[in-house]
């Protein structure tokens, strides 16, 4: 009996904590479907009285929202794709090819993990501007087309793969590129998926980067575009903003729910490393 009460108490605590902590999320979802009269009413309410899709209509007329959504996909998807290819190529060389300077390059790459991107933002911007890449996907994507964390992460994974696998292919006369493409990569799918999700989510959610590299509202991402809703009047159209936020969050929430086990486990292992 006492144990049952204990269990019930524990469960109730967890439920209450979860509901309190998810309140901002609940607010986003419920406000997105609220008519503006209710959003601006006093006293404020939690759930909408009359559910409506007005806010979703409005976000598409107030902002080039479809375009922003597409931009986010091209930007985050492009960075992810390039980074996976370039990082895995470099990681393969560091993990499998014995060349002079291997160790040194690895140390330099690991050391560069300590550089926050905010610290080099201005020279990177100057370079991008010099290339006439401001307001272009090239400017958004190229500086992130490879990254030290990805190289290091994949290198660690490749080193852990049994070497007999690729040596067997080499005996059969396979080229290094074939060994990489046909042997190592297929065995590294879990690591690639983990890194890919991380990269995609980070870039989709990034604010400072698109803020700096795009000045044309048509080139903004969904994250930086939503900040344009706060007009000069200072009045924030919360209903529209929550509808936009909900759409911005949805792809990631779905992606996360599909692969949550892998995602959470990968986070967990970063802490144990």
């Amino acid at each position, binding site marked *: 009996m006492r*144990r049952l009460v204990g*269990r019930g108490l*524990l*469960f109730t605590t*967890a439920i209450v904590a*979860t509901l309190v*902590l*998810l309140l901002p999320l609940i*607010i986003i979802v419920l*406000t997105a479907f609220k008519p503006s009269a209710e959003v601006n009413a006093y*006293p*404020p309410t939690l759930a909408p009285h009359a559910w409506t899709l007005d806010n979703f209509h409005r976000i598409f007329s107030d902002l080039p929202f479809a375009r922003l959504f597409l931009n986010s996909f091209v930007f985050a998807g492009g960075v992810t794709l390039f980074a996976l290819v*370039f990082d895995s*190529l*470099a990681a393969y*060389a560091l993990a*499998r*090819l014995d*060349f002079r300077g*291997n*160790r040194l390059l*690895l140390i330099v790459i*690991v050391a*560069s993990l*300590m*550089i*926050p991107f*905010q*610290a*080099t933002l*201005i*020279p*990177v911007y100057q*370079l991008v*501007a010099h290339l006439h890449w401001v307001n272009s996907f090239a400017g958004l994507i190229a*500086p992130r*087309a*490879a*990254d*030290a964390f990805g190289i290091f992460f994949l290198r660690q994974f490749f*080193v852990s793969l049994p*070497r007999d696998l690729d*040596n067997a292919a*080499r005996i059969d006369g396979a080229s*290094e590129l074939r060994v990489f493409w046909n042997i190592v990569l297929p065995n590294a799918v879990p690591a690639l998926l983990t890194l890919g999700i991380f990269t995609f989510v980070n870039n989709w*959610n990034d604010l400072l980067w698109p*803020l700096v590299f795009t000045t044309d509202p048509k080139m903004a991402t969904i*994250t930086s575009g939503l900040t344009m809703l706060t007009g000069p009047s200072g009045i924030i159209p919360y209903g529209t*903003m*929550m509808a936009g*936020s909900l759409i*911005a969050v949805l792809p*990631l*929430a779905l992606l996360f*729910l599909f692969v949550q086990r892998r995602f*959470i486990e990968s*986070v*967990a292992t970063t*802490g*144990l490393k």
Partner: protein
Amino acid sequence: MTTMTQPARRRYRPPRQLGGGGRSSGFRFGRGRGPMAMAFMLPALVILGAFVFWPMISALRLSFTHSSGFGPTTWVGLDNYREILHDPKILKTLGVTGLYTVMFTPTAIVLALALALLLTNKALLGRGAFRTALFLPFVISMAVAAFAWSYLLDPQLGLLNYWLREIGIQLGNVLQDPHLALPAVVVVAVWKSFGFYMVIFIAGLQQVPEELHDAARIDGANAWQRLTRITLPQLSTTFAFVVVFATIAALQAFDQIYVMTGGGPYRHTQTVVAEIYSQGFKKLDLGLATAISYVLLLITLVMSLIQFRFFGSREKDVVG
């Protein structure tokens, strides 16, 4: 290149476990390994070289100049760094960032650890579902989190503000309040990231051997004693990692501040990164902005070096 002599010199070396190619298998693909490796490394090296390493050097040079990005660039020596030390406005951004870090790191860690302890309790039903739900805020962008919190805290329309008023807590206009604005942007960051640290703590807690708890229980230790004498000491490595990780994240605070306060009121939430953004991209004082960037870089490096000290032996496994 010297690469050509490498096979001969390396032949008698004992096989290595990490790094290095198929040499240990007794299989020879010696020649051409260097150029081959370069071909594999080239795309990544070009990107990192152009957008990480060169900007590092370029930023240092720029920080000794006065430049607006247009027109001439004049060499001013240490003037920008002197300005950081003497301009109370800029100095304050360091103070704000420090205060932000001091508020953020312990709050995030205590919340994450408490939830991790709750969610590793074997008596709790549906642990996986709770873990998923509580991790969700981490998937959301800081900007969206900031929108939701701005609404919750709005002096007239905000539900949270209203509820608190109902129970007698008058917060007023939180984001315009010099005392409450910084805590408010910290709360948003804590809310967005606690799930991340929670998951790391859960992983750490799962590594604590069950026998230790059983033994302690047999010896008559109560739950609090088991927590403070066994669980927490066993968690020290995870703890150190999370502290450093959270601190570095706090040093880079920007997104929710840009959305919620714009650095105000009266620069009470103007962090270092917010200052880099406004000096570099609004006031176009590139020299000063990069000097501030370098200060941020140095602070981050010091924090990272501490991290490497904590994990010194492990990093040696990896690199050395």
